[in-house]
C-alpha cells in the first residue's frame, strides 16, 4: 500500500497531544457547519471577491471528484492514478446520450454513471490484488485505454476536438422544472445537491463498521487480513464506491461545459485529482475540497497570466508535499490543537 504521508515522527507530532475527544467532536461539527454554510452561500460571496458562479460550480464538481478519489486514497490507503477514466466515462456517457439518444439530462447522467460503474467493477476485479505503485500504474494503463478510444473514435466521440453540439437540458421533475440551462444559480444548486448527497453517503460509509475496515486496511493490511477482513473484496468495494462518485462528478462537469472533453479521460486529469487531495490534506475529510478550491483558483488566476500555469501548480504541489505532508488542512489542524 502506498502511504504518501509516511513519516512516522511527523504523524506523531501532528496528532500527538492525545486529543480530548469531546472537544475534537465539537470542533469537527463546527467545521462541518462552516463548510456547508460557505458552500450554500458561495455564489453570493464569490462574486464579491472577483469570482463568478461557474467558477464556484467547477470547484464543487472537482471537489466531489477529489473527495471520491480520497475515499480510496486517504481512507483505504490505495493510490489510483486512473480516476479520470471514470470521470470521463461519466462525461461522455451524458454527452453521447443527450446528443444521440434521449434528450433528458437525468437519463444521460444515469447512463454515464452506469457505464462507469460497469467499467470500474470489471477493471477493479482485475487489478485488486495489486498493491502500491503497481496498482497505480495499472490504473493509468486502463485509464489511457478509454482516452484512446475517445481520441480515435472520431465520428462518434468527436475525437481530439471532444464531443460538442449538445447542451444540458432543464430537469423535469414532473411537478416542476429546474432550468439548469439558463439559470446558472439553479445549476449551481443542483450540483451542490449532488455533492451533498454523495459526500453524505461517503461520510456515513466511513463511520460505519465497513468504513472502519477500510481504515484497518490502510493502517496495516496484514493485521486486517488476520482479523478476518476479506481485504481484496473490501478494496474492490472501496474502489467501486470511489469510482461511482467520481463518475457522477464527471457527468456534472460535462454538463457544466456542455462538452465532453477527451482531456477529462487523460491521466493528467487523474493526476490533478491526486494533487487536489494531497494539497488539501488526504487524511482530512474536507481536505480535497480545500485542495480543489486552491487548485482551481490558482489555475484560473495563473492561466490568465501565463501559458505554463501547470508548472506553477506543480511547483506549489512539490512545496506543499515537502513542507506540509499532511496538506493544508493538516497544518491548520495542528495549529488549532496546540
Amino acid at each position, binding site marked *: 500500500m502506498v502511504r504518501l504521508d509516511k513519516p*512516522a515522527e511527523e504523524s506523531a507530532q501532528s496528532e500527538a497531544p492525545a486529543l480530548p475527544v469531546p472537544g475534537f467532536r465539537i470542533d469537527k461539527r463546527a467545521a462541518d457547519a462552516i463548510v456547508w454554510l460557505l458552500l450554500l452561500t458561495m455564489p453570493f460571496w464569490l462574486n464579491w471577491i472577483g469570482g463568478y458562479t461557474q467558477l464556484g460550480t467547477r470547484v464543487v464538481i472537482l471537489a466531489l471528484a477529489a473527495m471520491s478519489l480520497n475515499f480510496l486514497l486517504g481512507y483505504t490507503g490505495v493510490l489510483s492514478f486512473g480516476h479520470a477514466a471514470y470521470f470521463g466515462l461519466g462525461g461522455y456517457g451524458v454527452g453521447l446520450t443527450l446528443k444521440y439518444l434521449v434528450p433528458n439530462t437525468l437519463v444521460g447522467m444515469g447512463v454515464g454513471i452506469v457505464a462507469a460503474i460497469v467499467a470500474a467493477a470489471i477493471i477493479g476485479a482485475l487489478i485488486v490484488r495489486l498493491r502500491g505503485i503497481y496498482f497505480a500504474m495499472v490504473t493509468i494503463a486502463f485509464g489511457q485505454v478509454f482516452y484512446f478510444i475517445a481520441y480515435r473514435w472520431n465520428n462518434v466521440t468527436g475525437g481530439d476536438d471532444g464531443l460538442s453540439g449538445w447542451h444540458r437540458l432543464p430537469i423535469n421533475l414532473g411537478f416542476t422544472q429546474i432550468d439548469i440551462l439558463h439559470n446558472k444559480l439553479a445549476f449551481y444548486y443542483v450540483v451542490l445537491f449532488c455533492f451533498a448527497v454523495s459526500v453524505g453517503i461517503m461520510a456515513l460509509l466511513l463511520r460505519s*463498521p465497513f468504513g472502519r*475496515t477500510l*481504515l484497518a486496511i490502510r493502517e*496495516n493490511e496484514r*493485521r486486517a*487480513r488476520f*482479523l*478476518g*477482513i476479506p481485504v481484496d473484496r473490501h478494496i474492490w468495494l472501496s474502489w467501486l464506491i470511489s469510482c461511482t462518485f467520481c463518475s457522477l462528478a464527471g457527468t456534472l462537469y460535462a454538463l457544466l461545459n456542455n462538452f465532453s472533453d477527451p482531456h477529462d479521460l487523460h491521466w493528467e486529469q487523474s493526476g490533478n485529482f491526486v494533487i487536489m487531495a494531497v494539497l488539501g490534506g488526504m487524511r482530512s475529510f474536507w481536505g480535497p475540497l480545500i485542495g480543489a478550491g486552491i487548485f482551481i483558483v490558482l489555475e484560473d488566476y495563473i492561466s490568465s497570466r501565463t501559458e505554463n500555469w501547470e508548472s506553477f501548480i506543480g511547483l506549489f504541489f512539490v512545496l506543499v508535499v515537502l513542507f506540509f505532508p499532511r496538506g493544508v488542512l493538516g497544518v491548520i489542524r495542528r495549529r488549532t490543537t496546540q
Partner: protein
Amino acid sequence: MSLLQVENVSKRFGDLVAVDGVSMTVETGELRAVIGPNGAGKTTFFNLISGFLTPSSGRIIFDGEDVTKLLPAWRVWRGIARTFQITEVFPELTTRENLRIAVEVASGYRLKTWLSRDADGEVRARVTDLLDMGGLADKADRLVGEMSHGDQRATEIMMALALKPRLLLLDEPTAGMGDQETYDITQLIRKLHRDQNQTIVLIEHDMRVVFHLADRIMVLAEGAMLAEGTPNEIAKDDAVQAAYLGKAA
C-alpha cells in the same frame, strides 16, 4: 477429537527446509509452548497454521476439517487468531478504535451494529471489557503508534482475543518487554487459560514464562521436532539440554 492436528508438515524456501516434517496435536483448553533456538522455524510453523504460508507438504486439521489450503481470513472465521513476532496493529488509530474494529469484524460487521443502538452498545461494552482485561483502559484514546512497545503488544493480543478465537497463536508475546510488562502479560495469558479455558499455542524465548505457563512444550531445532512433553520431561531431556537449554543457561 483434538482441536488442532498438524500432520507431518514441511516448508521449504528454496534449499532451506525451514520446517521439516513436524507433527503436533493440541487439545481444547491446552496451553502449548513452542520453543527453540533462533531460526529454528517456530514462526514459520505458526505461519503454516495461520495460513500466512501454505505447507510444501503435510496436512493441517482444525476441528476435524482440513484447512491446509485455506486463505488466512477463512481460518480466522473458523476460529484461528494470531499475533505476530513484530507487533502488527493500526498505529494511527486509537487503542479503542483498534479493538472496536476487531470486535466489529468478529460480529460480522453487520448493518445492525451500525444502525441499532443496542447492538452498538454491545460492541462498546465488549471493547471496554477488552480494554480493562488488557490493562489499557487509561490509554483507550491514545494513538497506538505512540504507546510503549508493551502496550502495543497488549493491544495486539486483545485484538486477537476480540475475535473470540478457539485457538490463539501468540508469537513471542513478551519479546522486548520489561520485567513488569512481562509479568502482566504472563498473568493475562494464565488467566485466559485458567479461567476461560482458552486454547493457546505460544512461541516464547523467556523460559520463566514457558515453564510457568505451559501444559506441554514442543522443542524445534533446525526445522525438526527435537522433543515434546510436559515441562518436567523437557527440563530433563538430554537432547534438549544439549541443543538448547544448555546453550541458554
